[in-house]
């Protein structure tokens, strides 16, 4: 009993020392977003993860995010440029719905793109929330600029495809259902995009091509301004384009072929990089566009409407835009394939299907922004929504792109550049680069062009088709919360 007081002291003492972190250590065997980011290097690995979300996963699993690899489905295949191998207005498959402008809210390609690009936004938000671990302020500015560029890029694609969207500008918890399912107006989305890109322009430098750079942010912002088409935005777009042009960092490749088959060439401002032969780092869209080489029997085939346009206005760009599918030359209807993105540059032999390596693991980079786009955007900015312009600078920029395509600088030079001619030039220059649908809408020509195209092909066009449906999956998820997500008109 005489030791009782010592025992009591030791026990009471234990009460105080036991409140240390001893029982709550960070488990060394696991990495979480809460504990991982402690240095600038670690934050940069997270930043690379944002690019990984854009690249998407090279597989045929519909539940995995395929990012930009499946972008052609929701952009080019809805336009008059491409379709499935055998277009059919009765085809109710996911791809068939897109080519015939008869998209259902349950369409998986739509859902996949939506989730992919919100994953980009979510990952960018994680980087932005952890900026305080970077001690060097210039480095912090650069990382912030890069993350904001990527968030703006994702939102810009989404807002043009879906209209009003949930505005997610920070890390949100699963319980925050209101912000997840409340769609805010496109004006607020564009405000965020512009603010993000302005930060990116001021924080970034010229180091990369397959990562964000200052000219990439400028070029993207110029396109945002052209899309907004508010008073004063054309001037801002023009100044941004001219800053890129005057920097003389970029130039047109003299041979159109080299734009697509020499990676990171002088014309590329921003591209999504892929590596050949590596499952985790390669892309499959190149194979999908061939005849039964990828997971499909052939998608993103060139419509006869696009073939006619390229034949008439393409100049020397024809062979590097499309070719007749070699397999269909033996009989039946001739179909046309895209030739800008042959898997690793291999055209597939005499039948278009014979490859030495694995065409499904192609390494062709996906070009997002290139110099020709900046030149034509400058012309568009000077045109400023008017029907035509006699402005020499606008015609100069327009002719620079045309001369590379084999047109004569003097005899083919128009005295006036019309909006219509510029839209046609953009169509043949950027054919199958996922620009057509956005161009048609931006030029105010979507309804008139697509209704004629739909009638000619037995499709059914309505103006509400210019926006995709909000994925049914999202609306179903919102049903269990107090905020019911709204659907776009025409999809109820």
């Amino acid at each position: 009993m005489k030791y009782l007081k010592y025992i009591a002291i030791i026990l009471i003492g234990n009460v105080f020392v036991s409140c240390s972190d001893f029982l709550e250590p960070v488990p060394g065997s696991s990495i979480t977003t809460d504990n991982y980011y402690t240095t600038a290097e670690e934050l940069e690995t997270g930043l690379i993860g944002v690019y990984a979300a854009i690249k998407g996963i090279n597989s045929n699993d519909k539940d995995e995010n395929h990012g930009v690899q499946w972008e052609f489905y929701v952009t080019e295949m809805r336009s008059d440029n491409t379709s499935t191998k055998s277009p059919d207005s009765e085809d109710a498959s996911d791809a068939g719905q897109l080519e015939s402008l008869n998209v259902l809210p349950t369409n998986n390609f739509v859902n996949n793109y939506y989730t992919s690009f919100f994953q980009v936004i979510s990952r960018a938000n994680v980087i932005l929330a952890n900026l305080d671990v970077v001690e060097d302020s210039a480095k912090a500015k650069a990382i912030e600029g890069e993350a904001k560029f990527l968030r703006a890029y994702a939102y810009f694609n989404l807002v043009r495809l879906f209209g009003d969207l949930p505005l997610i500008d920070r890390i949100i918890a699963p319980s925050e259902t209101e912000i997840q399912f409340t769609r805010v107006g496109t004006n607020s989305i564009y405000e965020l995009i512009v603010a993000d890109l302005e930060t990116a322009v001021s924080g970034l430098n010229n180091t990369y091509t397959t990562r964000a750079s200052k000219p990439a942010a400028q070029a993207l912002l110029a396109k945002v301004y052209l899309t907004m088409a508010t008073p004063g935005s054309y001037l801002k777009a023009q100044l941004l384009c001219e800053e890129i042009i005057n920097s003389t960092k970029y130039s047109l490749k003299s041979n159109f072929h080299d734009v697509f088959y020499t990676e990171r060439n002088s014309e590329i401002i921003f591209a999504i990089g892929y590596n050949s032969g590596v499952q985790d780092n390669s892309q499959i869209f190149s194979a999908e566009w061939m005849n039964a080489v990828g997971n499909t029997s052939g998608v993103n085939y060139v419509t006869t409407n696009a073939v006619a346009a390229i034949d008439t206005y393409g100049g020397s760009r024809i062979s590097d835009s499309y070719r007749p599918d070699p397999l269909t030359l033996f009989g039946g209807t001739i179909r046309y394939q895209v030739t800008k993105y042959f898997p690793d540059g291999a055209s597939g032999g005499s039948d278009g299907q014979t490859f030495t390596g694995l065409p499904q693991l192609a390494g062709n980079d996906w070009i997002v922004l290139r110099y020709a786009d900046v030149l034509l955007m400058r012309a568009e900015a000077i045109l400023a929504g008017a029907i035509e312009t006699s402005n020499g600078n606008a015609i100069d920029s327009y002719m620079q792109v045309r001369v590379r395509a084999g047109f004569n600088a003097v005899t083919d030079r128009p005295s006036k550049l019309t909006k219509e001619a510029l839209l046609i030039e953009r169509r043949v220059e950027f054919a199958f680069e996922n620009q057509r649908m956005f161009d048609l809408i931006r030029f105010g020509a979507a309804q008139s062009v697509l209704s004629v195209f739909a009638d000619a092909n037995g499709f059914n066009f309505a103006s509400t088709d210019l926006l995709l449906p909000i994925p049914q999956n999202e609306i179903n998820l919102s049903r269990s919360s107090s905020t019911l997500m709204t659907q776009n008109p025409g999809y109820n």
Partner: protein
Amino acid sequence: MKTISNLKKRVSGMCLGALALIACIAVTSCDPTIDALSYDLAEANSKEDLKPPVASFKATVTADYLTYTFANTSSSATDYVWNYGDGKTATSLDGENTFPAEGTYTVTLTATDKLGKTNTYSSEVIVIEPEVPPALNPGVINGNFDDGTSNWKPNSFSGGTTNAFNASSDGDPNNYDGTPSGASKTPGAKWTSSTSAGPLLSSSTRYAYQEMKLSENTNYILEYSYAIKTDVADIAGGDRVIVEILDGWFNDGADAVVSTPLVQTIGNEANGKGNFKVVKQVFSTNATGEISIWIYAITNDELYVDNVKVYPAI
């Protein structure tokens, strides 16, 4: 045998009774005049139209200012009637109309669902031919050099001089408006070997500079006349005057020298003193409309410039 026939009778009797009952029910149920049914409402058990149509649309002008496309954004409707306000109508889903002339038209969309509920939405379309605003025409100040070098001096010049040129009385015999002055000469600007650029570039090389605010992205014409006394081909490239339109305003002449001009013209015909040649050059202004005129010469002789004009190209 008797039991069989009894059985037959009973069965047929039952069948007959059942038939009579069915016929009775059929007759009464199909007759609306029967009193027992007169209290049932025609609408009984039918559901209310919870989602009546909401009409709306968006108008977009096409390349032709008279033609508009109308994007139908109505909900819960199946049939549509467009009234374009110019006497034309349509029943298509989306609308497209070419209006007869400029004016304000009230376009009305009536949306109807299959239960006969309707909703209308109207919007005014103002059809107007887009106007091209007239180009600014501020004119060149002291373009005839009557006031010597005033308004032609660079604001500052690092490592150089802000003297624009030598004021001279040996200018173009024509007036600024192109009419003959009657005299053999008017005031002009003059460059010599001591003020020349090129091989003779020095800190005393002179540049004439004038800022202008013009309409942005608009075509203008730069015009001037020049005379070269003799071209003795003893200066590399020959005696010549260089007149440029610079892309922007420059506080320091040294920045102007290294900038890329919007347009450059070179006058190199030596026709003798007093024999002026007119040069005209079209150029497009930049995005801001802020440009400047920049004149210098490469000469080891006497070179004259006069009547510098900038005016909108039609």
